[in-house]
């Protein structure tokens, strides 16, 4: 009925794509481990050894700076997670800022904990293995509104989620009762901005709720509206919300909907006692008019009313 399944699908493909990226990265890392394990670097001569030290130094300290500068704010890990670094003004990151935020990572990762202080029975050789806990970064991130760490604060950058393709959610209405009910909403009813927003959110999310829960949620908003529109009080709140959504977002306001077999029905309070206003009566008439084929649509008509009425 709406774009919701599309959204779920795109989230699913998004995760699938992310998993694929991680798989690629893990395979490459594994390959690098194997290859570097097979090479005896000292046998290649002193320049290779010096080169190895320099490459290690460069990767250790400047990998993030280089990648973020030349790949538009992303490292391989950021690419795999679908995130990106930008300036807090929304401009792309510059080399200098990338340098600052990546050098200061070391301070953000403080304090380190020695492996031997966690596992007492480990051999002392593991004392040199320090595990960075990142507590400084965590505390600073919790305390700042943009979830920046110290390096981000100093460089005025932030990390954002880099959204990729995402389907546009427009809820479509294929319920015949909705235009019918919408036609009874007074023409002078001006919808407020916050109401429009609420309606859109409601229409997007009602699929995740059970019918009973929908009525419960919608009733809070529809009780004053039912009075204002002079509708009968046992009208289905969910349907009324949906009709308002339809009127706000999906019609031009000028056209009169083709009501079809629902033409005789009115939800207005003053029509309660009129013969065609009674749902049962209308059903009888429709049956007479359209024969057994209209059975399904007459069943719909009953749903105009909240069958659980006073609950």
């Amino acid at each position, binding site marked *: 009925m709406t774009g919701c399944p599309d959204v779920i699908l795109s989230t699913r493909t998004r995760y699938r794509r992310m998993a694929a990226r991680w798989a690629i990265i893990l395979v490459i890392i594994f390959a690098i481990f194997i290859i570097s394990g097979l090479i005896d670097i000292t046998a290649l*001569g*002193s*320049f290779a*050894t*010096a080169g*190895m*030290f*320099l490459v290690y*130094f460069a990767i*250790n*300290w400047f990998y993030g700076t280089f990648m973020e*500068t*030349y*790949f*538009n*704010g992303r490292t391989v890990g950021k690419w795999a997670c679908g995130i*990106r670094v*930008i300036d807090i003004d*929304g401009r*792309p*990151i*510059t*080399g*200098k800022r*990338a*340098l*600052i935020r990546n*050098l*200061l*990572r*070391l*301070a953000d990762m*403080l304090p380190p904990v020695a492996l031997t202080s966690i596992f007492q029975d480990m051999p002392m050789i593991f004392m040199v293995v320090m595990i960075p806990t990142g507590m400084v970064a965590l505390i600073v991130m919790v305390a700042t509104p943009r979830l920046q760490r*110290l390096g981000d*604060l*100093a*460089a*005025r950058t932030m990390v*954002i989620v*880099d*959204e*990729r*393709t*995402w389907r*546009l*959610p*427009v809820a479509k209405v294929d319920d015949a009762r909705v235009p019918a009910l919408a036609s009874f909403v007074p023409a002078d009813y001006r919808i407020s*901005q916050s109401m*429009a*927003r609420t309606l*859109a*959110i409601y*229409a*997007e999310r009602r699929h995740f709720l059970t019918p009973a829960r929908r009525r419960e949620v919608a009733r809070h908003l529809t009780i004053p509206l039912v009075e204002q529109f002079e509708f009968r009080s046992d009208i289905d709140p969910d349907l009324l919300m949906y009709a308002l959504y339809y009127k*706000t*977002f*999906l*019609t*031009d*306001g000028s056209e009169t909907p083709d009501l079809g077999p629902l033409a005789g029905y009115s939800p207005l309070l003053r029509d309660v006692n009129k013969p065609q206003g009674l749902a049962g009566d209308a059903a009888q008439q429709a049956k007479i008019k359209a024969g057994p084929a209209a059975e399904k649509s007459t069943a719909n008509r009953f749903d105009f009313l909240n069958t659980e009425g006073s609950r």
Partner: protein
Amino acid sequence: MNVAKLLDKRRVQWSELENLCDAMEKSGRTDKAGGVHHRGAEGVTRFSSLYRAACADLALADAYHLPPGTVTYLHRLVARAHNQLYRANKFEPSRLTEVLFHEAPQQIFADPCVRIATIVFFGLFALSMFMAWNEDLFPKFADSMVGTEQLEQMEEMYEKPLVGSLDHYVSMSGFYIMHNTGIGLQCFAYGILIIPCLYNLAYNALTLGTVFGYMARPDAVGGDNFYHFVTAHGPFELTAIALAAAAGLRLGVGLFYTNGLARIDSLHASAMRAVPVMVASAVLFCLAAFTEGFLSPSPAPYIVKAVWAILSSGLISFYFVILGFPRGELAVIHPPRTSSGAHDAA
């Protein structure tokens, strides 16, 4: 207002922009987006006009009471296109000389943090050197500072006179660049928290000073060889450590001494000032590493090494004082109190 119709109308252009974004993300060009009018310069023009249209749609979205889902979609679309249109600024190698020979020395000369770091480092260095050397007054100092085992190891290391081969020199200078510059960068990074930086600086000063003092004792084994080794690269390396710490302290001090700016703006301004100093320090570390790799372990006569040490000290002094002497541009380095917003030299 029929939003669905409006969206259907605009959606054609939005999905075209999405396609262009996809192509841009994959190859950095618009050529593969499909249409004939997406090739070359035409594609770029099309991309930017679609981007502007999407920006306008986003601006109107609230006025049109568009559903929040649509507004969110537009936000994401505009952000995505924006990230492709305005890409990260790269480093400019031509600016490096400007940074190294103008900004850095000016900053070093004007920054009180450099003075503090230098006094802390060389003060503690000289103090511990004296205390380790003077066995009569402080008999246990060297052993308790560095440890007896380490001192013996040190003596053993420098027992034999220096001999070396080119192979050894090359690989060792690589190692020194990695190791010592790493210490400097660590000092810089810890500077934002001040105390770890000062601890690191003091630790290095005390350890080095103690070893220097101990080796200067007349009865130390291998003392001559030790000084033979360290003299040449000493000036570069010790200055570089102090400078790295000074750049780091500038960051930390920026958090407290805000100069009228908001705290975070001040931190950012300090970071921008600290980067040239850090770059200068890294260059000094590399010079020190090459000296340490090639000249220091070579069996060249001591006089050569001493001359190199004096020469390098002279170069550093020239760099700090002559190039660093204020040239009426202090207003840029010290922002006046009335100014607001960060000074972004990037």
